[in-house]
């Protein structure tokens, strides 16, 4: 009986307060925040820790907005990350067209215009995962079950029961789905989804370049979709290249040299010569919104609740905002002695997050439609819009604060 969770079942006690399905990024951060509030958490993770702990840089990284950094700091993982994090000091947004260079209209967001510091940091996937795994392992209130899947769930009166693929049954007061766009937790709870495909694919990779990036992030709006160049530590940058899916398929089939040649016309030459670092990844792009963020004894977080277009790099940050809001609702609920899985507690989370998440989904959808084309009329309109935003300091600062994740009703952990 080496598993304390099983021993607790034998005693007929609830062994955990919250079951989180999904051991990616949102799941562990929520687990850490909830454990800090004194709640006991079990994470059900389909992946084994060895897979999480790939040691070499594989090309994947995340833009962590300032608000998200505060959350990571609050749950005690930022200290382990900050040495490997590249601050994002500046964002330049340009309406581009392959082979023609940048249009004269552009937006320039400089972190010096807000007091709080850099708008965000670029953190490599391997570092973030390792830091989260270490923090989870060090927290007594978290039971991290790896290589296990949920096959059934049932909300009953005062609790929710979850059956794992090996037949083990766990029960808790709340079940949280941090299990991504095709969330099984949402499906089993009967939560329907609304959404559509963009016919675009995101190609994600990293490049090393000759010249320093100076902490500047670039977003080029190309006819096939947006191209983001985000500064990593050293002379390296992360690329998120959205392309029409047909074209993306062709590009992904190329060998590394030919792939770089295909990237160069959009990338330009401002960072000198470029070489690939790590692998290439691709993700089909689509919008998927859960019709509800909650069901009896169930809450959805991150992509399980709202999978959006990566156009502004806001996907993970929106998920972390869910995490911070839910963690705060749970802490307040626990301190009042209320039932953390009750409808009245979950409603507080839904009311708080739903509007913001839907607004972001609509904004990214609209931006993508407005920019991912070569229509001369739209091009004129969007260039004028960018010119106006760039010329008005108040508007500009609003965008900077948005990029830093500081707008709206911020959870305590992000203040």
């Amino acid at each position: 009986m080496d598993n304390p969770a099983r021993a607790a079942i034998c005693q007929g006690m609830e062994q955990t307060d919250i079951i989180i399905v999904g051991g990616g990024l949102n799941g562990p951060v929520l687990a850490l925040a909830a454990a800090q509030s004194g709640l006991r958490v079990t994470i059900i993770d389909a992946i084994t820790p060895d897979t999480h702990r790939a040691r070499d840089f594989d090309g994947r990284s995340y833009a962590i907005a300032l608000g998200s950094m505060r959350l990571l700091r609050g749950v005690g993982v930022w200290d382990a990350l900050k040495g490997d994090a590249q601050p994002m000091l500046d964002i330049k947004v340009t309406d581009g067209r392959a082979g023609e260079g940048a249009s004269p209209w552009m937006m320039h967001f400089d972190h010096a215009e807000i007091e709080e510091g850099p708008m965000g940091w670029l953190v490599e996937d391997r570092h973030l995962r390792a830091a989260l795994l270490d923090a989870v392992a060090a927290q007594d209130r978290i039971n991290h079950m790896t290589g296990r899947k949920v096959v059934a769930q049932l909300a009953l009166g005062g609790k929710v029961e979850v059956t794992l693929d090996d037949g083990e049954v766990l029960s808790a007061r709340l079940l949280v789905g941090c299990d991504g766009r095709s969330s099984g937790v949402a499906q089993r709870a009967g939560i329907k989804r609304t959404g559509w495909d963009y016919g675009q694919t995101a190609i994600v990779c990293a490049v090393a370049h000759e010249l320093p990036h100076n902490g500047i992030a670039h977003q080029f709006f190309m006819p096939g979709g947006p191209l983001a160049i985000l500064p990593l530590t050293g002379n390296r940058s992360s690329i998120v290249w959205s392309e029409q899916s047909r074209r993306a398929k062709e590009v992904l089939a190329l060998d590394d040299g030919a792939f770089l040649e295909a990237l160069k016309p959009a990338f330009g030459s401002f960072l000198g010569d470029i070489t690939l670092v790590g692998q290439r990844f691709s993700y089909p792009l689509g919008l998927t919104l859960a019709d509800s963020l909650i069901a009896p004894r169930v809450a959805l977080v991150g992509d399980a609740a709202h999978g959006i277009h990566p156009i502004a790099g806001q996907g993970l940050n929106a998920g972390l905002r869910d995490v911070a809001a839910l963690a705060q609702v749970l802490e307040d609920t626990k301190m009042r002695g209320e039932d953390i899985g009750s409808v009245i507690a979950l409603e507080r989370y839904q009311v708080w997050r739903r509007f913001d998440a839907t607004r972001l989904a609509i904004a990214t959808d609209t931006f993508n439609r407005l920019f991912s084309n070569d229509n001369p009329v739209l091009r004129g309109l969007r260039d004028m819009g960018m010119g106006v935003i760039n010329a008005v300091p108040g508007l500009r600062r609003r965008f900077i604060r948005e990029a830093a994740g500081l707008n709206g009703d911020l959870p305590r952990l992000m203040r």
Partner: protein
Amino acid sequence: MTTNTIDDQEVAKFEAMAEEWWDETGKFKPLHMMNPVRLDYITRQIAAEYNRDLGADKPFAGLRILDIGCGGGLLCEPMARLGADVVGVDAAPRNIPVAQIHAEQSGLTIDYRHGTAEAMAAAGEQFDVVLNMEVVEHVADPLGFLTACQQLLKPGGLHLCSTINRNPKSFAMAIVGAEWVMRWLPKGTHDWNKFITPDELFDLLKNAGLTPVDRTGYVFNFLAFTWSTSPDDLSVNYVTAATKPA
């Protein structure tokens, strides 16, 4: 548990009622809406009085708490979850099995009893905290009732008592608004004449042998559709804290 003297049909009936008491969108919705702000006040007052850290696990462990007029257990369950040793008493006998069944579903141990504050005081029971929420405006003899509450406290114990103010605004809000217009409460739930002003309640508490230490208003915000506390606005719903001299 002591519920085993009732038959299955009765249990089914009480389960349905338990669902009603705890249905956050049903006829007890106004109580559920008010519960977070009531609990904020109660938990903070108890934590301050007994030096407890609300962030800790089971912060109320070792405290004996009595909830008078416990209904379905909307306050008893949170107190038990926070670690207190809880007794809930209600004059309506049918509330007792309802509350017992729900506590069992929630995995909580709470001592629910059919009875009155006066009878319990006569039996010599003593508590660290007496919760007396939205009851005093329903009793025939408020001073006698509050005196019984005082007797139920250990020396130095804490008495939390909420009720509704008596003025034209409370008539408009609590009677016309809550009962006639919004139909949050059945007509006739409250008799405006039995409402008590904060000064009257303070006098009653003093005459009952308690020392009033705080009073705070509960204010309903129609735009946000939520309740919040206010130190100055005691015009309709309000709550008081009083201690029994050690």
